[in-house]
C-alpha cells in the first residue's frame, strides 16, 4: 500500500505553517495515525502535505488558574501519563489511555484527533463532558470554540479552511469529582463502538452535577443532557442511563446494529455513572 505522490513541507514555526495552509488546499499532517492509513488506501490523495511535527510550541501540557492547556501536537501517551492531566483532568487522561494501542498513542495527537473528528473517536466524549474549549488559529486570527459547537458531523468540525487546532483548554476537574470513561472497543479496530465519558459532583448524597459525553453512537459525539437532568433531579442511575440516546439515530454496521448500539450505550452509561459516583467524594 503506497500513497499517491505528494509534495511535503515541514515548517519549523507556527507562522510559517499558517502561511502555508492559508489557501486551505494543503492537507495537514499531525501524528498521521488516521491520515496516513487513508493515504495508503488512497481514500485521501492530497497533492501537498504540511507536517506540523516540527513546529515548535504546539506540544505541551500546563495548568494555570484552573485551566489545563494542552497543545495540539501533544501525544495521547503524554496526555495519558502526564502528572498535570492525571491531577487536573483525570477523565481526559483515562480516555487517552483507551485510544488505539501503545504505538498509536506514542504518535497520535490530540489536535489531530479532534480535527479529524472520527465518529468513533474517544476524545470527543470526554471533551464534551469536560466542557472543553478548542482554540483555533489561522494566519489572521485566533478563536475559541466550545467542544459542543466544534463537532458538527462525521469528520466535520467548526474548523475553517486555513485554520488549525492550536490547543485544547480543559477546565480543571474539581478534586471531589468522580469520573469514568467506559468504552466498548471494536474487537478488530479498537475504535469505540460506543464510549461514555461521565463526570459526577456530589453534594452529600445528592448529585449536584452530572456531565455525560457519548461517542460512537451517531455522526458525532453528543452530551446526554436528559440523563444529566435525571441525575441532577434526584433520579436513579438506571433511569438516567435509560434516556441515553433518546432522539438520536444510532449508527448501524456489520458489528453492531442500531438497536444493539443503543443497548450498549445504556448499559455502559450505567457503568460509567456508577464508577464516577463511587469515585466522587
Amino acid at each position, binding site marked *: 500500500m503506497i500513497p499517491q505522490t505528494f*509534495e511535503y513541507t515541514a515548517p519549523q514555526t507556527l507562522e510559517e505553517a499558517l502561511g502555508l495552509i492559508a489557501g486551505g488546499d494543503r492537507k495537514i499532517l499531525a501524528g*498521521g495515525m488516521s491520515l496516513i*492509513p487513508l493515504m495508503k488506501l488512497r481514500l485521501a490523495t492530497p497533492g501537498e502535505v504540511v507536517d506540523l511535527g516540527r513546529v515548535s510550541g504546539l506540544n505541551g501540557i500546563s495548568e494555570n488558574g484552573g485551566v489545563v492547556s494542552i497543545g495540539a501536537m501533544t501525544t495521547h501517551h503524554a496526555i495519558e501519563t502526564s502528572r498535570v492531566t492525571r491531577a487536573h483532568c483525570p477523565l481526559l487522561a483515562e480516555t487517552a489511555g483507551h485510544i488505539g494501542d501503545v504505538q498509536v498513542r*506514542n*504518535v497520535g495527537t490530540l489536535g489531530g484527533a479532534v480535527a479529524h473528528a472520527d465518529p468513533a473517536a474517544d476524545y470527543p466524549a470526554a471533551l464534551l463532558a469536560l466542557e472543553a474549549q478548542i482554540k483555533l488559529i489561522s494566519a489572521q486570527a485566533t478563536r475559541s470554540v466550545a467542544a459542543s459547537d466544534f463537532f458538527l458531523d462525521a469528520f466535520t468540525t467548526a474548523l475553517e479552511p486555513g485554520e488549525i487546532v492550536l490547543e485544547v483548554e480543559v477546565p480543571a476537574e474539581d478534586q471531589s469529582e468522580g469520573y469514568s470513561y467506559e468504552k466498548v472497543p471494536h474487537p478488530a479496530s479498537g475504535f469505540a463502538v460506543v464510549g461514555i465519558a461521565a463526570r459526577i459532583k456530589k453534594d452529600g448524597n445528592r448529585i449536584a452535577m452530572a456531565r455525560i459525553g457519548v461517542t460512537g453512537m451517531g455522526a458525532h459525539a453528543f452530551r446526554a443532557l436528559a440523563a444529566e437532568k435525571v441525575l441532577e433531579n434526584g433520579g436513579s442511575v438506571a433511569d438516567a442511563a435509560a434516556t441515553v440516546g433518546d432522539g438520536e439515530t444510532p449508527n448501524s454496521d456489520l458489528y453492531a446494529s442500531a438497536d444493539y448500539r443503543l443497548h450498549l450505550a445504556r448499559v455502559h452509561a450505567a457503568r460509567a455513572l456508577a464508577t464516577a459516583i463511587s469515585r466522587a467524594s
Partner: protein
Amino acid sequence: MKRKISLTINGKSYTDEVEPRLLLIHYLREVAGLTGPHIGCETSICGACTVMLDGRTVKSCTMFAVQADGRQILTIEGLAADGKLDPVQEAFWNEHGLQCGFCTPGMILSSKQLLEDNPNPTDQEIRHGLEGNLCRCTGYQHIVNAVRAAAKAGA
C-alpha cells in the same frame, strides 16, 4: 520531489534521498537493508513493523520516512549489544516466546517499551501493553511468560 533525510538507525548515521511518500518501514527494509522490522498487515494493526523512534515504539508502516528525519531509530537488529542479547531477547529465547517468529521483532520492542514504562507488570498489564502486537500463531501465553521472566531478571 525527493527530499534528503539524515537519521540515526541503531547508532549508525544514514543519509538518503527519498520520496515523501516512502513509508518508514519501506525505507528501513529496502533502503537501509534492515529486514528485522516486518510488514504484516500494513494497516497499523498488527505491530510487526514496530521500531523505536526517539525511544518510543511506533508502527513504521504508518509513518513517512521524511518524518523520521533527524531522529533516532532502534530496530531489532540494534538491540543486542556487543554480541550479547538484550535481556528481553534472552527471556523470549528461554521461555520460547515465539512460534513462527514473524511477530517477534515487534513483540520484543513492545515488551522493552512495556518494561521501561512499568518494570513490574501484572499479567493483565503485560497483555494490555502488548495490545498493539498480534501473534497469528496465537502463541501469546509464552510471550507473556517471556515478558514476566524478563521483568524478574530486571530487564
